[in-house]
């Protein structure tokens, strides 16, 4: 039991860090540019597939370097040549555009790499157990993922706290309407922030691809989860996004590893009891309920604390 | 007599910044009251506090003797207060006709009705026609509001504000950005439309202020420093000091 708890906690935190790599870019772009990028998870997927392709040709380490840069550049181009013009048509048009983009990315990935999962593996040099807990070997690739995520997190923190652009980002998080008054260079800052946000998502894709499945449907369900994270964390709050990412990462991981159901707790449903639907609820395992938990959490937060856990603005 | 608007010891801060400090204001029924003051004095914030757009940090706002601070704007509007905006704030994709009709609907008791046709609402349509004639936009009724020239959008803004028949009308810089001739027309319009109602107005144009107002309050750095008739304000030494270097008072 203790073994399960420790392993699940490790995996949960790791998953949470990956989620934060994506959610941080999404929430910063949303606060600064006012654009909710529906295609954000699509770029994560592109990162994974580019990572797969590049590591097939040149090896994993090149993929780790190149894929986020290429995808980030694509993202910057999307901001510069499409989103900026659509901005004039309003938020609905922007959101629809990124929605269409997400759809197109998925189609393109399906055409190029097919619908089945691709065989994306981490570098052979990391293919050994790092340490063992009780009887479980913890793979060193996961330790490496930890290191990358934490390094990015620290780098992000330093950039935001110390650099000029970081100050602009900070200001825009708390006072989104202020960004418009920042002067003539603001266009470049927007493109940069958008590109870096996309690049971070792609990086998450490159490192997550080998352990999660790299498949053309990996984006569709993820974007809803990211929306949950930024709403639950509180719009415009990076700290909130961080906590919500970890929370959801942990909840999901723990729930998936639990087999308990009402039936296992109270014994099988008596044959006299009403069967329709009750039977479903009685026998469903916590693992099966796992996909629901984040959305239930979303609704709970919206009812009890509409500004999110760490938000200052009401959602 | 119960005043139309009474502001009692209202404070408003954003974070650590105090925008409004111990604001007290009493506006009698039927009075035309102008609020003036240098830029950044908190005039728009005062309006936002009275109309329910913002809630005060402390203190009370009373409308016709009832506390309304803390209520949402639509509740305050239903109790008889209507406001305009400094930046034109119309229903941009709807026609002029529908803009005014929407402003009349609640006051005509239609609420959220989904079982009646708008075209059969004689009362609403007649009131709308009257308002459109009042603001000289009857000929422009089928134009999309967002495509109107600026001065006409300002007129529509005032039309929407008065359409519901509220007793208390508050106008936030209604003549901002207008030419001299347009300003004069707008002033005549405001005078006519707010007869027998209470009017509160924020204005930079001193011609408009002294031409319209029965009483004037001067707001400087979030505090009322003087309140009185136009003549009293003109001669008040504190006002002169606050406006020192500005030709406004001489005008």
């Amino acid at each position, binding site marked *: 039991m203790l073994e399960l708890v420790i392993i699940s906690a490790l995996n949960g935190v790791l998953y949470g860090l990956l989620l934060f790599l994506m959610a941080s870019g999404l929430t910063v772009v949303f606060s600064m540019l006012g654009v909710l990028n529906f295609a954000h998870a699509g770029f994560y997927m592109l990162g994974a597939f580019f990572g797969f392709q590049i590591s097939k040709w040149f090896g994993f380490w090149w993929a780790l370097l190149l894929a986020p840069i290429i995808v980030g550049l694509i993202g910057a181009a999307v901001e510069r040549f499409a989103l900026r013009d659509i901005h004039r048509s309003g938020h609905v048009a922007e959101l629809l555009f990124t929605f269409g983009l997400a759809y197109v990315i998925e189609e393109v990935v399906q055409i190029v790499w097919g619908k089945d999962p691709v065989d994306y593996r981490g570098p052979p040099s990391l293919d050994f157990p790092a340490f063992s807990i009780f009887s479980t070997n913890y793979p060193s690739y996961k330790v490496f993922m930890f290191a990358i995520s934490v390094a990015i997190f620290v780098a992000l923190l330093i950039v935001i706290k110390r650099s000029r652009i970081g100050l602009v980002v900070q200001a825009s998080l708390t006072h989104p309407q202020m960004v418009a008054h920042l002067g003539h260079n603001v266009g470049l800052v927007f493109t940069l922030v958008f590109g870096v946000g996309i690049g971070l998502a792609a990086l998450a894709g490159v490192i997550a691809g080998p352990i999660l499945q790299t498949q053309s449907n990996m984006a569709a369900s993820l974007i809803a989860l990211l929306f949950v994270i930024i709403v639950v964390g509180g719009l415009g709050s990076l700290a909130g996004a961080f906590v919500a990412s970890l929370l959801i990462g942990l909840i999901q991981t723990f729930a998936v590893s639990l087999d308990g159901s009402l039936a296992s707790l109270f014994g099988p449903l008596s044959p006299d009891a009403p069967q329709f639907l009750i039977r479903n609820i009685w026998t469903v395992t916590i693992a099966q309920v796992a996909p629901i938990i984040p959305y239930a959490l979303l609704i709970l937060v919206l009812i009890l604390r509409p500004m999110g856990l760490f938000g200052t603005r009401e959602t | 007599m119960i005043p139309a608007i009474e502001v009692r010891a209202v404070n408003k801060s954003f974070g650590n910044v105090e925008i409004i400090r111990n604001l007290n204001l009493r506006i009698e029924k039927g009075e035309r009251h102008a609020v003036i003051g240098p830029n950044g004095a908190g005039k728009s914030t005062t309006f936002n506090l009275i109309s329910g757009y913002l809630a005060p940090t402390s203190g009370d706002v009373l409308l016709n003797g009832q506390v309304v601070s803390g209520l949402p704007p639509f509740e305050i509007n239903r109790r008889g207060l209507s406001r305009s905006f400094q930046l034109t704030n119309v229903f941009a994709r709807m026609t002029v006709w529908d803009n005014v009709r*929407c402003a009349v609907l609640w006051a005509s008791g239609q609420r959220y009705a989904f079982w009646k046709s708008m*075209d059969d609402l004689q009362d609403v349509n007649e009131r709308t026609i009257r308002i459109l004639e009042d603001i000289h936009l009857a000929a422009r009724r089928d134009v999309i509001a967002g495509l109107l020239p600026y001065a006409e959008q300002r007129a529509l803004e005032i039309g*929407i504000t008065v359409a519901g028949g509220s007793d208390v009308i508050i106008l936030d810089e209604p003549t901002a950005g207008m030419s001299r001739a347009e300003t004069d027309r707008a002033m005549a319009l405001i005078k006519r439309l707010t007869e027998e109602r209470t009017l509160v107005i924020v204005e930079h144009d001193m011609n408009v202020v002294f031409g319209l107002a029965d009483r004037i309050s001067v707001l400087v750095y979030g505090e009322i420093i003087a309140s009185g008739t136009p003549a009293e304000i003109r001669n008040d030494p504190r006002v002169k000091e606050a406006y020192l270097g500005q030709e406004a008072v001489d005008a």
Partner: protein
Amino acid sequence: MTELVSSAPMSRAVPGARLRFYAAWGMVAVLLAAFPSIFTSASSLTTFSLVGTAIIFALSYNILLGQTGLLSFGHAVYYGIGAFFAVHTMNLIPQYGLPVPLPLVPLIGGVAGLLLAILTGWISTRRAGTVFSMISLGVAELAVALALILTDFFGGEDGISTNRTKLPAWFGWHFGPQVQVYYLVAFWVFVSALAMYALTRTPLGKICNAVRDNPERVQFVGYDPHIVRYLAFCFAGLFAGIAGALAAISFESANFTDLGWVKSGAVIFSTYIGGTSIFAGPIVGAIFFVYLSLSLSDYTSVWQLYFGLLFILVVRYAPGGIGGTLLMHRMPFRVGGLGRILRTYAIAAVPTLMLVGGFVLAVETIVHHTVNANEDPRIKAFGVSFDASSPMTWIVAGLLMLIGYFVGRLTWRGVTRAWDDARTIASERGIPS
């Protein structure tokens, strides 16, 4: 803004306007009634059932998107719940010998959609804009996940099936023949479309438009935008439920994918491409979408990609959709500049088609190499045969795109100039654009 294309706004009690209103809807009724005599084949009647369902669904979606300015990513939830309630009702009626005929079943679906919307709407509509969109997606994910757990009701991956002919007959009709189903669908399309059109002309309908344009100002004319959005949301749920029930009647089954994101995406695409700013826009969009999804798949294996790209182009270059773009030409028509604009279109069309042709050629070639790499390289797309392995194909595609792009840029400038001139004339004569 929301009038039917053919009928002018009845803002005054003009008898002519009222007459036009009845004439337009009377014509729709006659057309619907005459359709089976013109298109007699069962397959075209089946296609109509698809189209009719899609029309109601798209119109219901436009109550949110076009009328109230709410972009929902989960509208299919209400469609799907309507479908499932309809299927269960159709199974229960013969089982308990209830005297309910099939034509009333869509009402059950509608009520189911409405009740669910009443339940989920209050929280979702507290805020408009992006937050609403995010929550709608969350609710949709929740619904799909729940549907896969509650297998007694949703039938798991297989769904639930039914038999519409087992219900009590309706004046001798058992709804076995396709033409009887057609009339059932046509009736509900007519009634729902008319009801939704009428809704746009009511106080609530107008205030929905006002909330879409300026929720802040609405508060200062006495309305609570939250309640307005909530009511619009409930109506959208009601009609989506009717659409779902009609689909369930046509297919005699319901599946969890009816609630899912593909269905929600389809209604966003069709509504937006049709045009959200006029009432008939979603109707055009629904017909267009169903037609394309049925026919494009015969021409190319990657039609979804083209459809997605088309959607992006519409958002980028024609935000009014088909309906709005057509309507935009009223202004040049009035000032007499339409002929010139159409001529510039004709000129611009040539390089634009070259660009599109080159692009399609390139895409189809890539598709051949990635998807069907082991098959015969002489492939056919959109009726044109070419050899995907020949370098000529790449050269042709490249040239078409290059020439198309650069010549196209020049010719589209002509289009812009023609429009600018028309606008200048219009503003001089005081004609609103």
